[in-house]
């Protein structure tokens, strides 16, 4: 048997192997987008130039893509390009894909973050209530609300929401980020319309933006609430049967303290993972929501690029969201390790 490693070495080993895992996952992600973009189409050149292109054009694009080289070399060059931040040029906007992505990403981030906040603020208490009144009417009610959230096509709910709350009732504003005459008034500082307009004191625009994002935010919030409340319920059900809960009750702690102070605190650690994962789900859910609400984010960008047959943009967007996904997983891993005293 070898001697046990000193703690410092063990930590370094742990971090190194973990970084390796992340690197391999990212490499796999790149391999997948490479595969989809270059290998899968029967002729990637035709995808770009169209069927009626002149032979010279075809030949030029063929060489530009490096298709005369072996697949391994092509992949290697692809990776190098990505590491340099070169995702290719978008044919529809004629800008580098990375510039486009950075342009559109803040809007997506803004929408999905607000959705997540809503999902956590409502979903966690709902899950706790559901577990506390297990198999009683509040539990059934909350589970049904969650089940509906799981089963409903979110893009359809968006359309119905627009019809009812925008067209019929007029409570919220319609598609888009702002009313047309407000577009372009606020200077772009952070890319988040709420922060930018507030910082520049444009309160009229601020409230207009809120009115526009209410509906999509509620929809994304509902979407994540369904998942978060369900997971909170199952984690809390597990915690509430533990012996420390009984001990706390025997000591005479109030029910509120037992549930919120003891059980929820212990449930919080696995919940962090759940919340990080549902953030990733929201980024994805925003693809459909953004197309419904004409929200100027990544989802809308990918959607419109699809129809321009702009594969660079589609794959760049997929890669970006994938990377964010991987980092969210990483983050939840790190949080889990630092929050849970047992895993230190």
């Amino acid at each position, binding site marked *: 048997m070898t001697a046990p490693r000193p703690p410092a070495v063990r930590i370094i080993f742990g971090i190194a192997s973990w970084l390796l*895992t992340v690197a*391999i*996952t990212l490499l*796999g*992600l790149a*391999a*997948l*987008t490479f595969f*989809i*973009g270059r290998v*899968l*189409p029967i002729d990637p050149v035709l*995808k770009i130039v169209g069927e009626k292109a002149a032979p010279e054009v075809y030949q030029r694009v063929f060489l530009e893509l490096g298709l005369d080289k072996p697949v391994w070399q092509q992949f290697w060059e692809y990776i190098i390009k990505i590491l340099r931040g070169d995702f290719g040029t978008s044919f529809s906007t004629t800008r580098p894909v990375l510039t486009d992505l950075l342009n559109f990403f803040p809007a997506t981030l803004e929408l999905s973050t607000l959705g997540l906040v809503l999902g956590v603020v409502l979903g966690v208490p709902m899950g706790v209530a559901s577990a506390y009144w297990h198999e009683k009417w509040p539990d059934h009610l909350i589970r049904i609300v969650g*089940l*509906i959230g*799981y*089963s*409903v*096509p979110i*893009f*359809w*709910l968006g*359309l*119905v929401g*627009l*019809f009812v709350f925008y*067209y019929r009732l007029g409570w919220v504003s319609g598609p888009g980020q702002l009313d047309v005459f407000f577009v372009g008034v606020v200077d772009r500082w952070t890319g988040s319309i709420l922060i930018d307009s507030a910082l520049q004191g444009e309160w009229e625009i601020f409230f207009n933006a809120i009115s526009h994002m209410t509906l999509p935010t509620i929809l994304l919030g509902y979407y994540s609430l369904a998942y978060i409340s369900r997971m909170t319920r199952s984690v809390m059900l597990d915690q509430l049967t533990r012996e420390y809960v009984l001990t706390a009750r025997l000591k005479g702690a109030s029910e509120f303290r037992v549930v919120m102070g003891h059980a929820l605190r212990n449930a919080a650690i696995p919940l962090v993972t759940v919340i990080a994962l549902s953030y*990733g*789900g929201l*980024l*994805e859910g925003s*693809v*459909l929501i953004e*197309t419904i609400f004409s929200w100027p984010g990544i989802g809308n960008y*990918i*959607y419109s690029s*699809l*129809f321009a*047959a702009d*594969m660079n943009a*589609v*794959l760049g*967007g*997929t890669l970006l*969201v*994938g990377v964010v*996904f*991987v980092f969210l*997983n990483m983050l939840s891993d790190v949080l889990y390790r630092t929050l849970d005293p047992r895993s230190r």
Partner: protein
Amino acid sequence: MSVIADPIIDPKRALRAARIAEFKSFARRFMRNPLGMVGLVIVIALLVCAALAPILATHDPYLPALSDRLAAPGAEYWFGADELGRDIYSRIIYGSRLTLLIVALVIVTSAPVGLVIGAIAGNYGGWVDRIFMRITDVFLAIPKLLLALAFVAALGPGIVNAALAITLTAWPPYARLARAEALIVRNSDYVNAIRLAGASDFHIIVYHIMPMCLSSVIVRMTFDMAGIILTAAGLGFIGLGAQPPLPEWGAMISTGRKFIFDQWWVATVPGFAIFIVSLGFNLLGDAMRDLLDPHLRQRR
């Protein structure tokens, strides 16, 4: 012959009797779950719609009647008519066939692929396991809908390509499941006994590891079907799934989107169909998990 068969003399009959008894108790426990029954009824209704579509439909789902375009729901068109005057009710009935087709295509491809990969990884362990699980993790790390979207964008739209794309995103959970089960089974005494008796890895994987995964796989499949229906509808809505004039529900919402403010029924009705069917599979999945999940079962 005695009434009670001697299990040693007649093992096959005893096995069959035990299976029937097990199924009966399963059915009895299932009946006690009202939500599960609702789910079952919805799923059966979907199957009936698909099987009897020509009888249930009141109109030809493809035949345009331009004089009736965008007609409101009424006695002639129960759920209204779409932008070409086709009966929405009949299209929804026929659309159930497409929904089932996609779900079936995805399930029969993704579950076996995942099972085989997971069982092999768990059975052999070591490097095989590491490589296979890393690949699985990569697929799990990518947002499903986006991957499917990029895949269909490269292959071209269509119902089979959409199903292929969803398969690509749907197999990893099965691999995880099968691997976890294989890790437990491969070191158990009975597997060691068969191995000593000269059984091949193939035999062990196919006859001993895979059957152990079945109950969790069935639960997983039922849940997955709801997700598959939603993803397929999403792809159809974006325009990458079934192509017109096929009455796919997601694509129907997509065409109805243009008329949402004035002729709300064109987009709304197909959405209800998607919602109800995926709710049905979710309810059924919930009930099946409560009954079949070995972890929950032991608690009782």
